[in-house]
Every structure is written in C-alpha cells, then in structure tokens.
C-alpha cells in the first residue's frame, strides 16, 4: 500500500514538473503558436486514447464510435458557452455528462453484441450522431458552430488530462477494474465467479464516453470551429490507432501512442501526400515487430515468450479486425 502511494506521488510530481517547464517555455515565448496548439492537441488526444483504452483494451469490448461521444460533448459544451454563457469549466463537465448519458443509452442495447458486431453497431452510432448534427439547423448544419470562445489554456487542458489519467488508472487498478479485465479474459468464467458482466461493460462504456465528451468540449474551445465532418469515422479510427499503437490494455501505452500520433500528424503537415503512407508504414512495422503495441504491458510481453507464434497471429487478426 505504501509502495503504491509512493509511486503514485512520484508520478504526480513528475507530471507537475512537466507542466511547470512547459508553462515557463510558453510564457517566455520559446514555444511558438504552432507548438502550443500541438501541445493542446496532445492533451485532447491523450484523454481520448486513455478513455478508449478502458473500453477496448481493458474491458475487451471492440468499440469504434469514440468520435461520436467526442462530438456530443463538443456540441453540448459549445452551445452552453455560446448561447447560455455557462462558465467554461462547467460547460466542459456538462458536455462530458451528456456524452456519458449517451454512453449508457448506446451501451445497454449494443453491449449484448460481441466482437465484430459490436464494432459495426458503435461505428453506426458514430455516423448517426454525425448525420443528425449535419441536418440540424440549430447546431449549424454542415458548416457547424463557429466563434466558440478559445478558452482552453495549457493549464486547464493539462489538468483535465491529468485528472482523466489518474481517475481512469485508479479505476483500472481496483477491484472494479479487475472485474473489467476478467470480462476481457473470459466472460463466461467472470460471470460464473459472480461478476455482473453487463453492468461492468456499461460502466466501462459510460466512463469512456464521459472523458471522451470532455475531450470533445476542450477541443471545441481550442480550435474555434466544430463541424460534423471533424467527428467522422476517420477520427474514431485515429483514436483507435493511438491505443493499438501504444499497446491495448496499457494506460502508459495509450499516452505514448497519443503523443506519437499527434507528433507525426503535426510534423507531417507540410507533406500531406506522404502523411498517410508514413502512418501506414508505422502501423505495419508495429504489427510485425511489436504486435502487442509499443508499451504492451509486461503481462503481455511475458505471455509472448511462451506463445510467440500464437501472439503474432493474434496481433494480425486484431489488425484485420480494425
């Protein structure tokens, strides 16, 4: 117990130190505007990847509708700040809560499905949200909402990200998180050992949606404009790529994946024709050399020693499923 606490506080201190250094670099102007918006994007993407990892990596439910939840949070908080003058932080949290409500509503019927079927159902959900936004005049239709106050600062973004990571990680490393892991490992055995599998699937889905909604709200207040097109299925896949690249089931992996993909995205902006090619090559190389992801947890790499062949096959079938 003491050990866990010590490690935990060391992590917090390291995070705060990182925050301080970046804050100094920003105020002294060493980091320019491009780099600043990249840092904000990293915070959003880390929140998205860590929350999707809870659903896909920990609970083992293959969901690819994460951009849908992000969109619900983004629109909700943007409308609240634009039309109702709700304080910024409150609007973000409200966006997350509305997204979480959608998580419960979507999760209850779809989580009866397994594997591919769940993937298709969640993909459908994401698209339905997008089409609804596209055809609703109140939220601006195809041109979306613009003039959203750019209130996201590095400080606010960083602390939202830190809270997300800490809360989700605490959840994973508790008896409730173990229940989710057990569902991923063997659903029938988990149920037979007294775990209410339906309940825990919905909980994981709802928590994931909550933080994705908040990430959506933060990104809306960073980039002034949101359109339905910015939350299409490609965005869902981008989040999935971060999680898979970092290693399914590893929180640290999701963070690394999110940072890596955002860096790639930003620095390849000048050569757009090469971006998707490099993107794919990175993924193919990962599938060949590290099928468990960059930081696949030690648990996975240990398993790999025993069943190298089986693991490699598993990795390939995973990638074809995505």
């Amino acid at each position, binding site marked *: *117990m003491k050990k866990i606490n010590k490690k*935990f506080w060391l992590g917090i201190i390291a995070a705060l130190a990182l925050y301080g250094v970046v804050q100094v670099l920003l105020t002294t102007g060493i980091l320019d505007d491009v780099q600043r918006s990249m840092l904000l994007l990293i915070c959003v993407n880390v929140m998205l990847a860590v929350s999707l990892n809870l659903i896909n990596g920990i609970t083992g439910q293959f969901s690819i509708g994460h951009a849908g939840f992000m969109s619900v949070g983004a629109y909700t908080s943007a409308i609240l700040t634009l039309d109702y003058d709700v304080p910024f932080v409150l609007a973000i949290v409200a966006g997350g809560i509305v997204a979480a409500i959608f998580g419960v509503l979507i999760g209850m019927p779809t989580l009866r499905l397994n594997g591919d079927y769940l993937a298709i159902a969640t993909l459908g959900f994401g698209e339905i949200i997008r089409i609804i936004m596209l055809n609703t005049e109140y939220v601006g239709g195809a041109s979306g909402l613009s003039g959203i106050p750019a209130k996201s600062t590095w400080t606010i973004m960083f602390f939202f990200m830190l809270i997300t990571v800490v*809360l989700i990680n*605490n*959840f994973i490393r*508790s*008896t*409730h*998180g*173990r*229940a989710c*892991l*057990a569902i991923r*490992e*063997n659903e*029938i*055995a*988990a*149920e*037979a*050992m*007294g*775990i*209410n*599998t339906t309940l825990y699937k919905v*909980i994981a889905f709802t928590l994931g949606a909550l933080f994705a909604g908040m990430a959506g709200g933060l990104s809306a207040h960073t980039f002034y404009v949101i359109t339905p097109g910015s939350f299409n299925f490609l965005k869902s896949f981008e989040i999935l790529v971060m999680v898979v690249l970092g290693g399914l089931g590893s929180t640290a992996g999701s963070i690394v994946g999110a940072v890596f993909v955002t860096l790639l995205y930003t620095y390849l902006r000048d050569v757009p024709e090469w971006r998707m090619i490099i993107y794919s090559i990175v993924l193919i190389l990962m599938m060949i050399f590290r099928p468990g992801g960059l930081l696949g947890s030690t*648990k*996975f790499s*240990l*398993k790999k020693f*025993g069943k190298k062949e089986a693991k490699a096959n598993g990795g390939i079938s995973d990638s074809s499923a995505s």
Partner: protein
Amino acid sequence: MAASATAVLLDVKEASRSFGGLKALSEVSLHIKKGELIGLIGPNGAGKTTLFNLLTGVYPPSTGSIILNNESVGGMKPFKINHKGAARTFQNIRLFTAMTVLENVKIAFHQHAKHSMFTSMLRLPKHFKEEDEITRKALDILKIFNLADQSEELAGNLSYGNQRRLEIARALAAGPKLLLLDEPAAGMNPNETRDLMNLIAWIRKEFDLTILLIEHDMSLVMGVCDRIYVLDRGMLIANGTPSEIRSNPKVIEAYLGQEA
C-alpha cells in the same frame, strides 16, 4: 443440530432442457443434503455438463425447478447464482490467463467488496482497507493449494495440474456452500489424481462444503463419494451408494452396452 445437518441444500425437481429438437435433459430430479459429497457419472453425451450449466445459470431449465438453499434459482443469471452460494469449475479450464494467479483469486472476492468505484477512483481510505483484506484472503486460499509462491505468475503460465487447482481455489474463494466440480482430475496422472482427491476431501471438511463432482475415473468416484447419480441420454437411470451403483444392471448396460 441434527435437523440442520440433514437439511437439503440443492433440490432439483423434474428439470428438463431442450436445444431445438434435442432433449439434452429430461425430467431430472435430484437432491443433495448439506455436507454430502455426491458423484455424477455417465457416458459421454449423457448430459452431465448440461446439468451443471442449468445449476449455475448458463442457461435456464426449459421446464422444472431448481431450489438452492430454499430459494428458487432456475433462470437466474450466473453471477446471481454465484452470489447465492454455488461456485463451479469448468471441464475445459477457463482461467483469466493474462492475469496473475493472485488476481484470478481476487476476482472471486469482488462480490464481497463494499466500496464503490468512486471510492476506488479517488483512492479513499476504504479502497486500501478492502483491497488489503482481499489480497490477504486470496493469499490464504492460495496457501492451501500450494500456489502462494507462484502468486505473481501469470495464470496461463502454470502447469496443467496447477491450472486445475487454481480453478478450484478461485471457486472456493467465492465462499460457496455448494461446490460444483466438472471433471477436476481430467488429464491428471494417477498420483496427481490421488493428491487432488485428498485435497477435495480436506477442503470439504475445512470449509464445511457440499460438493457435486463429475468424474470419469470410476475407481475414484467410487472411493470418495457418499452417493452417486448416474445419467444416461439425458435421464437419471440410477442413484445410490457406490456399492449399489456398481451392481446396478442399468448402469452396467449404459457403460458396457446390452448383451446380445
């Protein structure tokens, strides 16, 4: 005292289960008293595992009732039946292979944890208190099964025999009144089987358990069980003490076939 010792723990009344046109179990009735060790035998495809699946809620009985500890559990979800006090193992081992041995056992204690997920997410004192308690209890169970020094090993890396033992340990950790063991000695050599049977006899006494056991090894079943039920083609064809079963012509017929 005498009354409670002979009270019926599990009472199955004319339970049937069909899959489409196939009647896997027809009107099976059996009862198990508290503290008994009951064997369930029968040729391949007789419906033994189907009966286990009915008892643990994997699917509901088509007709008939299942009463566990004076409460009807027919049609309840598996996790509910587990909470009511029936825990099982599986014929084909179903461990959480990418989790550690300790974590596997901790899963069974989840139902007794009182703290909410918000307590865990905010790391309030109650989280640590209950988590420590779960770890301590899980280690105690592992010690009984001689698995404590492998507690940090991944369950998937254990030897076959140890995986079987871990499954029993996990079922036991749920704190059941009725323990259902589906071929616990399958794939074990005679020495391992004998050790396992001694262990089962010991935990039965130590934890005051009632046990229902599916097993193929006749000598073993005859040796340890108080009573034996025999299933054949979905029907109960015999029930009685081991010596009665051994000389029952119906049982001999089911296993060896009819004389020409």
